[in-house]
């Protein structure tokens, strides 16, 4: 079939399978006679399951090759909503509505469909894919933000130094004003008697100032930014390569999607977690069912899952997944319409099989007589339900936009799908209107219990309603996800009324969603309850342990879920987030005033609980120590009134007193709102972790966003900063890698400030001896290579490889994570201490040689060589004192840098064109040189060494004690790794 290229919007085009679409197009017809096209939207939202798109029945058989098709498509302005599309099309005088299911977006691929014909509606930049291409908001690490303040302080230092030099130069010039012409080392006048290179005092001072800025500019560590990037790449490499963070099940490694917030992982105070797919596996298992007031618990009977299969055209078809079945129910379902019970069972499973958006895909298996049916759909709940229906003999075989085929106990039946009201978060239910083979029209509805009980006809079957309600309560207290199913037979007049309003609503361009919702609510009422299903949402492996670790580490875990309160609480218990010791404060309100009242009450109550126990705060520490921790449970309805109002502050006050906060029934934007609530009110770092599209806003809002590469597609991963396979990796990520990253980065920044400042001060001291004229004793080459070769590599290698504590210790004592939360590795106090140390060290290496050589015949280059060697050895030894783990790389790089400096200085001094020719060879022959080198380095390091020792020994921080315990601690605590270490160490130091 020929391909026509598109020249612009509105051109008809052809597409073949497997190619990526270049524009957004409305489907006209496909190779499938029913007009279905399967598309893969992996480029768009990352979901790998196939989605169905439909061509309109009216255009299905129009072939642009054979006849001219004329029509008019009116569509809304280009927007970025990839799940919404409103348009209508006029073909042959008929007005047809177009929705999101009729459009294929740029970046999608056709699958299982030979070809499709469509009309391009949006192209180029206006396609939804491109409009969504804004990317995640750029995040900057907290450490870097703090660092920028210190960089401003350093800039002020720089300006101060330059001002001092300029002022001194001014004084000098004024004092020697009359001598400038004769001074042998100044000589203002040249041979012609004119001023040479001299303007006036003002300009001279200006030049001095500018020149001093140039000489001292390395005070601002530009190279630090590059080093930081390199270190982060290194850290990311180790995080990605960590076998402890590899998920076997999804075969996925840890992913670093953003490279500039690695160190933030070490300072997290709040974790906001999604529930479904994050704490739980999002692998739904059909567990229990209540039909017509009778509870059938398949799980109890412990029957091995039995495959159900049907034969079609001589081939056996069976579903991909098998479901545990209840034998009693199985019998009932096989009996079909014979009894009253059977009738209800029939309707119930018919509803499960029909009322969904699942697409059955029949695929070949290795056995030629067998085919496999795979249910593809966007909701895992629906998948579980359809598989369950299939297991009970209601196998969905085919679905098109017009009808579905269900194999009921071996008998194929075709139902016309007259209308489908998709699930939306307002109604919290979906419904399908089926034309049954016996010409009756039925509406099947399934949805969340709260929304369903509102539309169920309460006058009918009160007993059954009550029984179902109690079953639902049981199910949700077990942590099961429940859905209620109802149905109603539509009379002809009712159907007609519905049909006309549905047609009208679905062709509307403006406000279609609201209109459709109205139509749906009109038909979804007075339902007869059929029953309820319960699906188990399995907890992910290691979640309770991970939450416990995080809690001990002083991280507050908040769970934000769209689930019901009961489900959320039961998951809270099973994940050890809630314990029986906790006092629960529940806030469920329907108005602002009642919210205010309950918040106030809750605050009073939490205060009372705190004071009774004499504990003011229980954020860190063990749970035994603080007798009554408080858990806050709040639902989305209350949050509607609280967020974005003055009650926010009260909620925050309350929440910060609670050790656990559970928010249920929250909408995606509310999740972001809660994150913002905490983020804007504290300086503490927040982390959001989630796996679904509904977590994207929260992931982007939090300081650190983590995506779980799970079942619900990849939008969360796309929006996240880090992505991993399992929730439990969070412990390794935060407690181990986060701690390391923070410690390394914090130290590296301080060290880089120190390293550059010590050089600047050295230059500054010398300038004071040169009549303030900014001569540098150190050769230009050496000053340039200082931060490139002489001292750069050790800090990067230490920044990547150094480790204050082993993984084992960090996991054993999660409290050690507090070091990052308390900013122990980088804070203003440390900065100023470092600067004082810098001043001392630079003075030591400057003044010792100065006094030793005062009034001697030393030349400027020799002294410069001495200084550069001294400063390089000093800064490298300074690093060596602070290195915690000496691996061979650390040795190589630190001693290598010192050796490299000697080599470089030698090479520079072997160039006859430079002023310092042969100076190092000459000066290295003298003993004074070596004595000065030794003395200046030792004297420079003594104060730091002393302070470090006194601090570590007499006021040790937790990290220090843990480090000692790692090395000397009682042997039962020391693991095999540590024993190996001490064997390598050889003789014990003490």
């Amino acid at each position, binding site marked *: 079939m020929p391909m026509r290229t598109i020249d612009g919007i509105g051109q008809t085009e052809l597409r073949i399978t497997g190619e990526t679409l270049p524009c957004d197009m409305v489907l006209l017809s496909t190779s499938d006679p029913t007009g279905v096209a399967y598309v893969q939207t992996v480029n768009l939202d990352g979901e790998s399951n196939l989605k169905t798109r439909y061509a309109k029945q009216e255009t299905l058989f129009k072939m642009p090759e054979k006849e001219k098709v004329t029509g008019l498509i009116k569509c809304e302005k280009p927007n970025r909503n990839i799940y919404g599309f409103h348009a209508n099309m006029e073909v042959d005088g008929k007005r047809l509505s177009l929705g999101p299911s009729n459009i294929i977006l740029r970046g999608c691929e056709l699958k299982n469909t030979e070809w499709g014909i469509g009309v391009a509606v949006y192209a180029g930049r206006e396609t939804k894919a491109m409009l969504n291409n804004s990317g995640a908001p750029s995040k900057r690490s907290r450490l870097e933000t703090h660092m920028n303040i210190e960089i401003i302080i350093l800039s002020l230092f720089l300006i101060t130094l330059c001002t001092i030099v300029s002022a001194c130069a001014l004084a000098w010039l004024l004092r020697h004003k009359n001598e400038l012409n004769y*001074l*042998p*080392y100044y*000589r203002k006048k040249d*041979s012609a008697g004119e001023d040479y*290179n001299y303007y006036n005092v003002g300009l001279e001072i200006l030049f001095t100032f500018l020149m001093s800025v140039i000489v001292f500019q390395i005070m601002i560590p530009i190279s630090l930014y590059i080093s930081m990037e390199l270190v982060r790449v290194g850290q990311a490499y*180790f995080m*990605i390569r960590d*076998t402890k963070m*590899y998920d076997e099940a999804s*075969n996925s490694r840890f992913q670093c999607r953003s490279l500039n917030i690695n160190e933030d992982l070490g300072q997290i105070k709040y974790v906001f977690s999604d529930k479904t797919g994050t704490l739980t596996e999002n692998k739904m298992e059909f567990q229990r069912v209540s039909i017509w007031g009778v509870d059938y618990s398949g799980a109890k009977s412990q029957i091995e899952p*039995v*495959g*159900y*299969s*049907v*034969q079609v055209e001589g081939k056996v078809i*069976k579903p991909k997944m*098998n479901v545990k079945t209840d034998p009693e129910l199985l019998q009932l379902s096989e009996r079909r319409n014979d009894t009253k019970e059977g009738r209800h069972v029939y309707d119930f499973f018919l509803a499960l099989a029909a009322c969904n958006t699942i697409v059955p895909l029949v695929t070949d*298996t290795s056995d030629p007589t*067998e085919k*496999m049916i795979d249910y593809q759909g966007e909701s895992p709940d629906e998948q579980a339900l359809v598989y369950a229906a299939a297991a009970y*003999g209601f196998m969905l075989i085919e679905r098109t936009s017009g009808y579905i085929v269900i*194999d009921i106990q071996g008998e194929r039946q075709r139902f016309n799908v007259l209308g489908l009201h998709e699930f939306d978060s307002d109604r919290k239910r979906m419904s399908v209107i089926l034309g049954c083979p016996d010409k009756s029209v039925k509406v099947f509805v399934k949805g969340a219990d709260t929304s369903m009980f509102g539309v169920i006809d309460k006058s009918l079957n009160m007993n059954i309603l009550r029984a179902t309600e109690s079953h639902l309560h049981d199910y949700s207290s077990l942590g099961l996800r429940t859905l209620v199913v109802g149905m109603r037979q539509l009379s002809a007049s009712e159907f007609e009324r519905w049909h006309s309003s549905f047609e009208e609503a679905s062709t509307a361009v403006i406000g279609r969603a609201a209109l459709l919702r109205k139509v749906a609510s009109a038909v979804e009422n007075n339902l007869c309850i059929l029953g309820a299903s319960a699906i188990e949402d399995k907890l992910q492996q290691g979640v309770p342990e991970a939450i416990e670790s995080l809690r001990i580490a002083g991280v507050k875990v908040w769970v934000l879920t769209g689930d019901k309160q009961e489900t959320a609480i039961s998951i809270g218990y099973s994940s050890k987030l809630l314990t029986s010791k906790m006092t629960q404060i529940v806030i469920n309100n329907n108005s602002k005033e009642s919210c205010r009242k309950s918040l106030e009450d809750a605050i009073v109550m939490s205060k009372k609980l705190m004071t009774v126990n004499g504990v003011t*705060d229980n954020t*860190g*520490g063990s749970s035994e*120590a603080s007798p009554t921790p408080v858990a806050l449970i709040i639902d989305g309805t209350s949050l509607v009134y609280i967020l974005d109002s003055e009650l926010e502050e009260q909620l925050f006050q309350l929440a910060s007193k609670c050790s656990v906060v559970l928010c249920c029934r929250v909408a995606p934007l509310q999740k972001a709102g809660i994150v913002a609530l905490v983020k804007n009110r504290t300086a503490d770092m927040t982390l959001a972790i989630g796996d679904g599209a509904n977590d994207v806003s929260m992931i982007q809002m939090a300081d650190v966003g983590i995506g779980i590469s799970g079942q619900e597609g990849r939008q969360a991963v796309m929006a996240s900063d880090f992505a991993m396979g399992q929730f439990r990796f969070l412990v390794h990520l935060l407690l181990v890698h986060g701690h*390391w990253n923070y410690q390394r980065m914090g130290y590296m920044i301080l060290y880089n400030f120190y390293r550059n400042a010590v050089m600047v001060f050295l230059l500054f001291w010398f300038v004071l001896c*040169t009549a303030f*004229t*900014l001569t540098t004793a150190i050769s230009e080459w050496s000053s340039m290579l200082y931060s490139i070769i002489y001292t750069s590599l050790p800090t990067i290698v230490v920044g990547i*490889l150094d480790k204050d504590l082993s993984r084992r210790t960090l996991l054993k004592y999660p409290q050690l994570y507090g070091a990052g*939360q*308390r900013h122990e590795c980088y804070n203003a106090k440390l900065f100023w201490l470092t600067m004082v140390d810098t001043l001392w060290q630079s003075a030591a290496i400057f003044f010792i040689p100065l006094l030793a050589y*005062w*009034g001697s*015949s030393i030349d*400027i280059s*020799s002294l*410069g060589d001495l200084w550069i060697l001294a400063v390089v050895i000093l800064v490298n030894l300074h690093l060596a004192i602070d290195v915690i783990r000496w*691996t061979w*790389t650390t040795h190589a790089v630190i001693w290598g840098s010192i050796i490299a400096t000697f080599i470089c200085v030698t090479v520079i001094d072997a160039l*006859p064109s430079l*002023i310092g020719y*042969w100076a190092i060879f000459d000066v290295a022959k003298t003993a004074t040189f070596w*004595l000065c080198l030794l003395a200046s380095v*030792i004297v420079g390091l*003594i104060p730091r*060494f002393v302070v470090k020792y006194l601090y570590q*020994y007499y006021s040790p921080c*937790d990290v220090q*004690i843990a*480090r*000692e315990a*790692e*090395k*000397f601690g009682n042997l039962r605590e020391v693991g095999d790794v540590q024993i190996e270490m001490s064997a390598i*160490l050889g003789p014990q130091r*003490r």
Partner: protein
Amino acid sequence: MSSRGAASSSGGPQLGTSDSSKRISKKPKYSRFTQQELPACKPILTPGWVIATFIAVGIVFIPIGLASLFASQRVVEIVHRYDEECVPPIFSGDQLAFIQSSITNKTCTKNFTVPKQMKGPVYVYYQLDNFYQNHRRYVKSRSDKQLRSKAGELDISTCKPEATTGNNSPIVPCGLIAWSLFNDTYGFSVKNKVLNVSKKNIAWKSDQEHKFGSDVYPKNFQSGGLIGGGKLNASIPLSEQEDLIVWMRTAALPTFRKLYGKIETDLEANDEITVVIQNNYNTYSFGGRKRLVLSTTSWIGGKNDFLGIAYLTVGGFCIFLAIGFLLLYVIKPRPLGDPAFLSWNRNPSGIMN
């Protein structure tokens, strides 16, 4: 027709295994490097270590300090400031006029006694104070290319304001450094016997061989209106002009010495030395002082007690610290790595934030 069977239940797992064997596992390979478990040495500042370190530093530093102090004490040094004395009393009000005048007699004779025996070679230095040879304008005012070879004669762009003569012919050697060449001379005699001052090998061999060309001869030197200092013999190549080479190794600090020559003979104690100084060099314009220095040498160079004192101080301080730490350790020891000291064990309600 429908059928149920145990056999059909194996369909799922089968597909699963074939699926996973097809895809390549992305599991990171275990290595001690990637898992950050490289063997490492983890030094900790234990009291033993620290005290031992300080004692070691003390033990190394104190002998070095003593040795260098001793060496410095053994150096015999005669320093004689002559800039004031060598101006005749009538010019004491206007020293500048004296030094700038071409008719005044600049010869000045001084006597001093040798305090202790000075073993040869005795180094003769001149010392200048308050002379900024490291001044930026000064340091840059030279042309290494011109000094190195005849071909670079015209390379004078860096030499201003002493680059060319009035009629634009280049000065060799150009620049302020050469222009301000020190030109006082000293003649020594003991008991009316002239002491020979050797001016050979006072410059660095490396400079003579590679920085100052043997084919470069002084040209137009010191011919301008302002005379900065010494003149050079135009028939001797620069590589042989050792005074110039010494002078052009610019000093690091504003108070500096430069080697004038060597007296190869020993000077006995109480010898009366007579120095005839040609006081030509103008330091009066900026209040610079001139000194004549005779000094023997030792392994630490000239006479300088600073290093010895510094080493003794640091060494003593380290020993003091070591003793202090030892006492502190005995009085108030802390068991290393005792989990009881962890903050959450000390403070049961957890860490207050």
